[in-house]
């Protein structure tokens, strides 16, 4: 009897789960129910190039596997609730020890800083005076500035340390944000960075042969800025590494990065709880990119003026950083700009219309769940854009999810824009043939610095482009 009950319960549970996950997926697909999405993208782990025997079949198998894994992870009942609450509970459980270790770390650092100070004091006193003056210097502009900030460690996940920074402006406004610090060992950072540069250079060599101009734009974040250590003294700024990466690039490549050197800039340009750029950050990146390209090609249209701002009431946004770390004490309020773009063709992975999306958001008809990712929900996964311009410029953008927010605006300055997320990069096939077929004049690398430069997830796919 006991064994029967045990088997009924355990096997019953497994059997129910076997059927329930695909059922939820099916119902979600046909629109009968709406599941919470956690931005948990599951893709084929391998892509077989065409020279591998049975490549088509093997790629089909990989896609089937990914679909099965996706079903049995993202469509499990209450998946989002479980992830959210368990991660939050873990954060709370570990918090006392985290605090203790932080205090011990701070003490250790203060002691070692004191030792360094004493040694330096013996060498020169004037240097200290200069440093002190720089630290206390106030920003010259009238913009509000941060007068106080503190940080605390939240968790480590996926090769990154998550911190929350609490900041206070001179006008009394308080802001908290979650920021990341790469925790990959330095030698691995170096190796991956050099590999990333090599892959970009290999593609550039082909572009150069075909007279195609090449640009690299890093979607930066706070750690890429020079002041990062002021905010999180136990971490190191990656600015020297970013500079080293740029120095490794073929001189043919023009490069730039979103300037996020201060906490104020981070708050202004990036989401507080998500790793992506916010609508203002996108605009600044857009201007940077267009201005950089116009230096070579003045026929490219000038950057558009900043659009009309819409702050969406009630669109609370807990981004990827909040969801991964389980820290829900701070949030974003979603906002976007309307640039009143001219009529154009937009092809995305699903039918998309900005006006319709805008209307839905302004009417409050958006996903209000805790796990709602407004960046993903609002901006499309754009693959192709065509504007009625006569610039003579067709751009190939090698990007990642950062392209979602910026593509429609960026494409408005060119004739045609082809966008390949790193997940689809293999679809380009042979680059020479692609350039010829689509009359590509410019190639733009535009990726999250953690991916495009440091390849943090070890998922750089640029090698999948056929350069022969």
């Amino acid at each position: 009897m006991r064994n029967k009950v045990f088997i009924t319960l355990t096997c019953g549970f497994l059997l129910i789960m076997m059927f329930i996950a695909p059922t939820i997926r099916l119902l979600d697909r046909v629109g009968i129910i709406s599941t919470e999405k956690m931005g948990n993208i599951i893709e084929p782990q391998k892509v077989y190039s065409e020279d591998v025997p049975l490549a088509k079949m093997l790629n089909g198998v990989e896609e089937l596997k990914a679909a099965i894994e996706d079903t049995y992870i993202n469509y499990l009942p209450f998946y989002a609730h479980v992830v959210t609450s368990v991660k939050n509970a873990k954060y709370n459980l570990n918090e006392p020890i985290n605090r203790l270790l932080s205090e011990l770390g701070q003490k250790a650092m203060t002691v070692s800083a004191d030792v360094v100070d004493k040694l330096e004091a013996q060498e020169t006193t004037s240097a200290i005076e200069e440093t002190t003056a720089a630290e206390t210097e106030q920003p010259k502009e009238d913009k509000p500035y941060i007068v106080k900030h503190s940080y605390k460690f939240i968790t480590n996940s996926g090769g990154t340390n998550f911190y929350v920074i609490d900041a206070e402006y001179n006008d009394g406004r308080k802001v908290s944000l979650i920021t990341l610090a790469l925790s990959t060992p330095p030698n691995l950072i170096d190796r991956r960075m050099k590999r990333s540069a090599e892959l970009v250079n290999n593609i550039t060599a082909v572009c150069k042969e075909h007279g195609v101009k090449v640009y690299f734009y890093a979607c930066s974040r706070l750690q890429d800025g020079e002041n990062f250590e002021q905010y999180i003294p136990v971490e190191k700024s990656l600015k020297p590494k970013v500079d080293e990466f740029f120095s490794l690039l073929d001189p043919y490549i023009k490069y730039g990065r979103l300037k996020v050197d201060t906490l104020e800039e981070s708050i202004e340009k990036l989401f507080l709880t998500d790793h992506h750029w916010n609508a203002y950050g996108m605009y600044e990146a857009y201007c940077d990119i267009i201005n950089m390209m116009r230096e070579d090609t003045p026929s490219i249209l000038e950057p558009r003026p900043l659009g009309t701002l819409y702050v969406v009431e009630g669109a609370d946004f807990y981004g990827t950083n909040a969801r991964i770390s389980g820290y829900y004490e701070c949030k974003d309020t979603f906002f976007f700009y309307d640039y009143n773009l001219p009529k154009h063709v937009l092809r995305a992975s699903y039918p998309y219309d900005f006006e319709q999306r805008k209307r839905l958001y302004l009417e409050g008809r958006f996903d209000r769940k805790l796990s709602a990712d407004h960046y993903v929900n609002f901006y499309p996964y754009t693959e192709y854009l065509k504007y009625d311009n006569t610039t003579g410029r067709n751009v190939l953008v090698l990007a990642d999810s950062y392209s979602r927010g910026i593509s429609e605006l960026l494409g408005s300055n060119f004739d045609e824009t082809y966008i390949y997320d790193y997940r689809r990069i293999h679809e380009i096939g042979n680059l020479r043939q692609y350039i010829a077929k689509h009359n590509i004049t410019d190639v733009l690398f535009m990726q999250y610095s953690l991916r495009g430069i440091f390849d943090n997830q070890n998922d750089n796919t640029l090698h999948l482009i056929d350069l022969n």
Partner: protein
Amino acid sequence: MLFSSLPFLFLFLPLFFVVYFACKKRYARNIVLLVFSLIFYAWGEPLYIFLMIFSIAFNYVFALLIAREERGSAKAKAYMAVDVVVNLLLIGVFKYAGFFVECVNAVTRLNIPVPQIALPIGISFYTFQILSYVVDVYRGDVEVQKDIFMLGAYLSGFPQLIAGPIVRYQTIAEELVDRQETLDEFADGMRRFICGLAKKVLIANTMAQVVDGILSYSAADYGIVGAWVAMLAYTMQIYYDFSGYSDMAIGLGRMMGFHYLENFDYPYIAKTVNEFWRRWHISLSTFFRDYLYIPLGGNRVSTPRWVLNMFIVWACTGLWHGASMNFVIWGIYYCVILVLERLVWGKYISKVPAVGHIYTKLCVIFGWVIFRAESLSMIGEIMRAMVGGYGLGGAEIPASIVLQRSGFGMQFIIMFVVAVVLSAPVSKLLKKKLEGIGVGGILTDAAAIAALIPCVIELAIGSYNPFIYFRF
């Protein structure tokens, strides 16, 4: 595919048992096992499935050829030699070619390109299984299997396919054709499977995060505290990871009516290193004992010859674990300890159990340093940190920050305490006591079901799930 993955738990496993029990005949059930096992393997290695099919077919033919000849005849010996050489060549090419070339380059200062060959998952396990079969056929210890599908079902059986235990053909030869699947066995198997899953998902993975985190920093940063935390956690990680997998394999086997031999017997309670090895990875130790150590003469030889035998066996044991100099050193490390234990200090240690425990633990923990380190220099660094060579660390980052970033928190501490307690036969005693009282069985079942839920939750939220023994 991993046992500790949601597609396995919620799709593969239920589907397999539905189809398996839908077939009434033994032969059909074995075919179902074979087909599902190939799918299971192909999930991770679609191309290497052909290597496995070749291995099955090749060994099937050679075992038939050996069985056809008179035992001990020159022809039988020749077939046997060819079979062993081809099997060792396969594992040699896929697992050791790169290492071999690196060694040649290092010794000769040549610059031969190192072949980059992906390691087929579980090749060490299934090669040893098939070798045991062919050798046993040669010795006349088992009847040759005339049905290739039955041999395939044995060799590729998904429960033990990729991370052991090494199931010898003679263990399950009879059960392959005549076994009983009963409700009681199925329930026991399920309990054992859940126990293994919990060991892996709740304990080993929690330990792994901290170990990997700490050891990704420099020893000068994590210092003595970090080094000991890392190595104590690794000591638990490797035990719960591997014994968890063995539990799952044994449990799955039992659900199908197979009775695989135990692979672990509370190794951390051992009072000597020799005893530790009688309790740790038993299927591997007995394999080397029966197929290498005893044929070499075992311990019925002169002392110098015995030392040589031990050296050969332990060097092979080390190499079996991985194509790297670390593993060879790890094997030799145990050879030296076991030789000295027998010849010098064993008799003294066994008289004081407490000293024996401490001595054995220290030997094992330092052994794991060699095993875990990714290079020879890393072995030195970790050991130096453990004996205080880097003080409290903090050369660039305070050791407390290293611990913090590595996930050292309350969850880790709780799981570590649980791991230490359960590494002794406490649960066994508790289970016996509980079963003595009326509600004991119900409590055991409730605990098993209660363990399944957090496992599923952990699997759902975490992606940290690689099995250590996959690389073997």
